[in-house]
């Protein structure tokens, strides 16, 4: 093993956003992170977990609210070090040709025109875009645009290559192709880059590329796991160790508040897992229809299936599946055990009931287990007229979540409230109001 050199080190970095009323929302909890040379590191987390913010902290694009980020032991001092970023939506300048886009970083460093030209042509050849120099980005497909993104990133021979969800805007086959080519470049040592750091929400992508995986919890962002993947390339998705690690990651992601042991003595760090006391529970962003659908599928398989297997069969991303699983677990319609999802008796009754009874069961479960819905229902009931403006609840949520997240929480709560016929929302008056319930026979 070559000696590891620390290229970037983040010490106790935090990031807050201050809201107009002075309230601070913490996006990243005090975190230590180091990037060593010779590794591909993946930062894995669900959407909104602050991973893009973390990436920008490490590159120097944003500065931390507290703590410091050191580049080879020295603070940034406002300068950007020799790094490159590949962006999720390519970030190509639409009015420059492919060649001009790739030459731009070289021009920025004062390289003479002939040299710019030569190096740009060479790197375009390496990424396979030879012949497309005079094309404009709008004439290219998504995969080709990202190749230009890579060419532009690599033409300056950066010490560290950062990637912000580089393949999520591409279709599955193109993403697979590009991943393959990136790995080839890295393994054949054709790049002078010392390390690659990328951010993704795709667990499989992290497993396929990375030598080291860091898993982030969200709200606020906190490292839940940081371990090395010592599997040789090309990696086999069916290999036992691969599956083992995937399961482990799923567990960490679905139950971030508990400690999980890495299935092997080679654990880097398993961060402390005491759940923050009095933490306001987040409503998972899933629709009642989605929850019902998941439970129906599970019942088809005898009420129980492996999460990884399920996601694979449904060709779904973790991002889309996890919230539905979380919601089902929250409502006590399902249970998570060792990476397996299992339907509970309550869940079974829910699935087997007719439409109206489903609403009743959902209503009971929601009122019992979802704090936000309980709060809304109580508040509306207590008010004469049974009406309250949405800002009332938005203020409560603002205490615990960022603006954007508070809005989403309320949206999801309204969905659930409407389905369960607990309350409804008048968009014109911006008010929530209690639904008149017709007494139904409780079967």
């Amino acid at each position: 093993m070559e000696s590891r050199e620390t290229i970037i080190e983040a010490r106790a970095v935090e990031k807050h956003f201050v809201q107009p009323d002075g309230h601070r929302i913490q996006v990243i909890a005090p975190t230590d992170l180091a990037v060593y040379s010779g590794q591909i590191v993946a930062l894995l987390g669900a959407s909104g977990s602050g991973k893009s913010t973390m990436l920008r902290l490490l590159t120097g694009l944003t500065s931390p609210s507290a703590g410091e980020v050191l580049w080879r032991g020295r603070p940034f001092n406002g300068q950007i070090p020799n790094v490159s970023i590949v962006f999720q939506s390519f970030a190509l300048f639409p009015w420059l040709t492919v060649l001009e886009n790739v030459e731009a970083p070289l021009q920025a460093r004062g390289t003479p025109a002939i040299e710019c030209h030569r190096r740009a042509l060479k790197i375009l050849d390496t990424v396979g875009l030879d012949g497309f120099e005079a094309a404009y980005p709008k004439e290219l497909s998504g995969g080709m645009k990202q190749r230009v993104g890579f060419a532009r990133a690599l033409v300056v021979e950066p010490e560290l290559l950062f990637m912000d969800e580089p393949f999520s805007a591409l279709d599955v086959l193109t993403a697979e192709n590009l991943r393959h080519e990136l790995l080839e470049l890295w393994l054949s040592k054709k790049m002078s880059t010392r390390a690659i750091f990328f951010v993704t929400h795709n667990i499989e992508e992290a497993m396929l590329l990375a030598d080291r995986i860091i898993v982030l919890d969200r709200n606020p962002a906190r490292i839940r796991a940081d371990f090395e993947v010592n599997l040789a390339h090309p990696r086999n998705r069916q290999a036992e160790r691969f599956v083992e690690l995937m399961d482990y990651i799923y567990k960490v992601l679905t139950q971030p508040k508990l400690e999980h042991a890495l299935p092997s003595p080679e654990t880097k760090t398993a961060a402390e897992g005491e759940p923050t006391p009095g933490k306001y529970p987040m409503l998972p962003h899933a629709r009642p229809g989605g929850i019902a659908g998941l439970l129906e599928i599970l019942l088809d398989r005898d009420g129980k299936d492996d999460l990884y297997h399920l996601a694979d069969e449904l060709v779904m991303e973790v991002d889309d599946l996890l919230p539905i699983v979380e919601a089902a677990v929250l409502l006590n319609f399902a249970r998570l055990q060792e990476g397996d999802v299992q339907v509970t008796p309550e869940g079974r009754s829910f699935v087997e009931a007719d439409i109206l009874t489903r609403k009743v069961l959902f209503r009971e479960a929601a009122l019992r287990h979802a704090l936000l819905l309980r709060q809304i229902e109580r508040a509306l009931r207590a008010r004469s007229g049974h009406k309250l403006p949405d800002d009332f609840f938005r203020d409560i949520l603002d205490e615990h979540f960022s603006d954007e997240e508070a809005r989403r929480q309320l949206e999801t709560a309204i969905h659930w409230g409407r389905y369960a016929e607990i309350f409804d929302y008048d968009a014109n008056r911006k008010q929530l109001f209690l639904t008149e319930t017709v007494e139904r026979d409780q079967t």
Partner: protein
Amino acid sequence: MTKPILGRTIFHERTWPILVEILIFGAGLAFFYGLLVIAETWGGPFSPAAPISRSPQALPAYAANSLLRVLIAYLLSLLFTLVYGYIAAYNAKAERIMIPLLDILQSIPVLSFLPGVMLAMVALFPHSQLGVELGSILLIFTGQVWNMTFSLYASLKSIPQELREAARVYRFNWWQRFIQLELPYAAIGLVWNSMMSVAGGWFFLMACEMFVLGERDFRLPGLGSYLQTAASAGDTTAILWGLGAMIGIIVLLDLLLWRPVIAWVEKFKLEQVESASVPRSTVLNFLRRSMIVANLKRKVFRPLGDRANRYFERSIDRPNLPLGSPIWRVWAERALTVTLAAAIGYGLVRSGTMMAGLNRSEIAEIVSGAAMTLMRVMVALFIGAAWTIPAGVAIGFSPRLARVAQPLAQIAASVPATALFPVVLLVLVQAGGGLAIGSIVLMLLGTQWYILFNVIAGAMAIPTDLKEAASISRLRTVDRWRLLILPGIFPYLITGLVTAAGGAWNASIVAEYFHFKGQTLMTTGLGATISHATDKGNFDLLLAATIVMSTMVVTINRLVWRRLYRLAETRFKLEA
């Protein structure tokens, strides 16, 4: 490319490009020669009230003069825009003052700047014609610059975050960022606003080339003066010649300047996929194929750009100073704020004393004038909307109709209404009407096109599936308008109405007060008060009337238009 074999085609292949070169070279020569001639007259002795001939032979010279004035004013506007818009977009503290200031400046009619600008320029160049010319150019400038500045500011603030981050991470220096990111992103908005600005220049040309300031008579050789002189004398033939010349210049400008620029600026469109129909321009194609232009690019512009780049690149290697601005900067900011406050205070005190000198009848004139002009603006907007909404929707919904109607509307819109006004007045005076109605007609003529074009755009933007849903539900016409069409075009309609309202207020200064056939037609109105006060040299009245107009426009902006915009952005936005 294979060379054709037939003799004839080879002949064509070779001479065609040469023809282009000759044309371009010739145009360049003519342009420089014209500049020299004009520069000679402008640098000549001070003759502010040159006699204006009404014969058509004088027209080419007059046209050239006016064209040059409008273009120089435009270039000045562009420079101002780049500096002001840039600072306002990037300096948060400055922004807080600069943008409201821009709002206020936009609401001040062109004539109100007249005394200050002219007196200053003539004082600077007392013995040369240059002072008067500069004054006229600056006046035209005040009618052109504000909307361009707003456009640049809005564009700079809406640059996508990722493009900015890419520029930062790849260490673009200030110049490279400007040339490769900011300017291209703002290009399309700037081009359309430039077209609007130059059109505004033509609109106010008459007022800016020939005017009375107190006891002084200013008459500059140009199309505007020609038209005004002809109108004053009631000389119909001259009026028509002048109108023809103006339309001719506008059409030429459109063909040689705007069409190629619009076609070129397509490449700055922020779209991911090429759109089906792209504007084309023959002139642009010629220019692209020309060797002269290509050589200019390679030998002159690119090395200049490289050199500029390298100069600015050196300036970013210095690491940023640690947190906390240097002492001198803090003190400079403080000094600036104090000076500004002092200047504003002084201005307020002076204006106060000036206005205190107003007598009862003048105050009454202002108040009644304000009410009348406000009413006229509203009537003009109403009438304009009443015909442009149905017409615009009809055109927007039918591509066949659009193909015919849009070019017609564009030609009609590009004729400056002030040039048409004498003809309109001739008809009105025959019919026995006065300026009370006539002013509304002029406001309409000048501003209805804004509403029309926006409504057409809005109607085109309504998605086909909404229209299909409406027809399947067999909605009655009333319901179709109520539920689909009016809500659909609402955001565009508001934009059109705001622009039209601003134009109407501005137009009031020429609409309510006009020299025609030896007499001065005027009607009660704020615009008339302003023009009249300028003519008579009553600066106190001018200042007071301007303040009232400006306050009204800004207040209506905040109370009415802003609310409607917010409604348009939330409830009536078409995307999810």
